[in-house]
């Protein structure tokens, strides 16, 4: 499967990130208002008709955030919006030309405030997380080979129930951690959402995609949104392969 030859196909993450992305997309001519009714609209695919700033129109796929890179990597979508957390978890052959500065959060290590676990090289440690690869890389760099306990939600419950000594999870304000009597130990990754592009699309649909990148960059430059998150650093080994 590959992208349509004409027009652009975008994969957008439903939920929190989309709310922040929609105003930005509207400013560059990708306006879902009147076409898509919002989160209660159950349609997963909407077509945007062509217009001067978007010749050829666009097809928008509304998917789970963690699935966006998959749609783009398999070429079903030309471009997408994905968090640095999802991108760092799997090596992928994608371009990430623009940090959109939205969806800012951090991937952190946390543990019960009342029961800290001092780390030593070679120790046994159980860590609950949605991010097994990033977690493994982090602890290995400290000489620890943790037992990774993969969870898909409510990771904070891990240390409370004794399932794990520490967790690795995303925090925005830190409120969920505090309410569950957890404290942050360390930040592994500053996360923001990025524009991602399929390698063939960037080259074969260079004009519309370059126009989109430039328009988004200009829109970000004028409102300065997300500038606080632009220091995002990516862990080594997260780039795509040949």
């Amino acid at each position, binding site marked *: *499967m*590959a992208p349509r*030859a004409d027009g652009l196909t975008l994969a957008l993450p439903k939920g929190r990130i989309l709310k922040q992305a929609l105003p930005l997309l509207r400013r560059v001519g990708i306006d879902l208002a009147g076409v898509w009714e919002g989160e209660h609209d159950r349609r997963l695919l909407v077509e945007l008709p062509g217009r001067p700033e978007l010749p050829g129109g666009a097809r928008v796929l509304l998917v789970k955030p963690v699935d966006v*890179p*998959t749609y783009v*990597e*398999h*070429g*079903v979508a030309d471009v997408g919006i994905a968090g640095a957390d999802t991108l760092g978890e*799997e*090596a*992928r*052959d*994608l*371009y*990430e*030309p*623009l*940090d959109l500065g939205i969806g800012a959060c951090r991937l952190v290590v946390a543990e019960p405030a009342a029961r800290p676990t001092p780390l030593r090289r070679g120790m046994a440690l159980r860590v609950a997380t949605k991010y097994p690869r990033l977690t493994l890389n982090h602890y290995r760099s400290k000489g620890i080979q943790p037992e990774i306990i993969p969870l898909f939600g409510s990771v904070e419950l891990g240390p409370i129930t004794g399932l794990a000594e520490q967790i690795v999870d995303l925090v925005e304000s830190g409120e969920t951690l505090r309410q569950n009597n957890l404290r942050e130990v360390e930040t592994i990754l500053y996360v923001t959402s*990025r524009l991602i*592009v*399929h390698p*063939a699309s*960037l*080259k*074969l649909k*260079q004009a519309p995609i370059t126009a989109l990148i430039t328009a988004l*960059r200009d829109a970000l430059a004028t409102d300065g949104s997300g500038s606080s998150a*632009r*220091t*995002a*650093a*990516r862990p*080594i*080994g*997260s*780039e*795509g*392969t*040949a």
Partner: protein
Amino acid sequence: MSARLPEGVDAVLPRGARDLLPAAARRRRVVTEALLGVFDRSGYDPVVTPAIEYFAVFGRWLAERERQRCVRFIEAGSGELVTLRSDITPQIARLAGQQLHERLAAGEAVRLCYAADVVRLSEGTHEQSERHQVGVELLGDDAPEADAELILLADEALRAAGVQGAALEVADVGIARGLFERLPSCDVEALHGLLARKDAGGVARFAAGLALGEEPRRWLGLLCELFGAPGILGHVPADIRARWPWLAERLARLEATLAVVEARAPELHARLIVDLGEVRGFDYYTGLRLRAWAPGSARPLVVGGRYAGGAGFAVELDALEASLDADAAVVAGRAGGVMVAIHNREPQARALATARAEAERAAGRRAWVQAGLSLEAAQAAAAEADVLVYFGADERAEIWSQGQPGAWRRAEESGA
């Protein structure tokens, strides 16, 4: 042996492996022969390399992440670590060092081609573990004309296999690598990652933290954006060329390569995409890096590049066939031939049918026998045939011919 799977066996094949059924396998052979035909006409001699290599020899060519994807085992008797080949180019390089060094030392260029399968363990989102490649290596000629020869050959091969108008992406990994060598001490791996992702903002922030002059800083930023039609080479600022003779030399080489392509195939030149900031690809690449893209395939149809001692490319057959599948203009044909079917399975009737099939083959036609089928079942079984010769219960031959698939027309009737 039962044709069915044993009870309790669910996983039929290892991850990333698959079968090709006759129609797909037949097309694979046609495609492979078309590609090898093009390579042969340009003087590329066939080689066959082994499926297994000593890892200590083979693995030297690979980056760590590629080494980890090798399927390895211990050789009985010696205890040596053996690997399935994960790539053909290191094998050709080994072969060149072992068997061709005298020819190469005498200044001869050696042209080799191959059709081979390679195995890389599935990793992350890279599900496909077995890749089918048909490729070439051009050893002992490092002129820009040799790079151009490979670009032209890749396009000719794709066209012969049925892919028209592919986009050929030409990069020179030496540009970014040359720059890395000349930067003040910094985290080159992080910069490599930023350039690989074409993260212009990230590169700018990285450069801001380095003790760099104005031009190098600007050049680093430009690297993420200098891709497109060959004309983008004109966008490299003159002062940057003047400041860095090594870069001017690399760009001049790339321009020379592109000029050869333009002179020999202006139509292909219009389909070239040049990328000055490309850093991805095998670690052993030192200069040219070539990829080809076509609608229908999310993965490149051609992957190749220049390394110490030679240059080459491989056509990835799965990607090429995905592109053919998506092209409505490419219609898969029937295998054709004559199917001889008989109503019963009696030895005498079979002998009759076999004799008829032999006569058809002697006349140069593809022919085979099916026994024990009704006329209806015989027509269904003859989907790949143009002609069905059917011996009914009276052992008289009915001749049927197939027009559109499934549309059978009675042609004639004759005595047995």
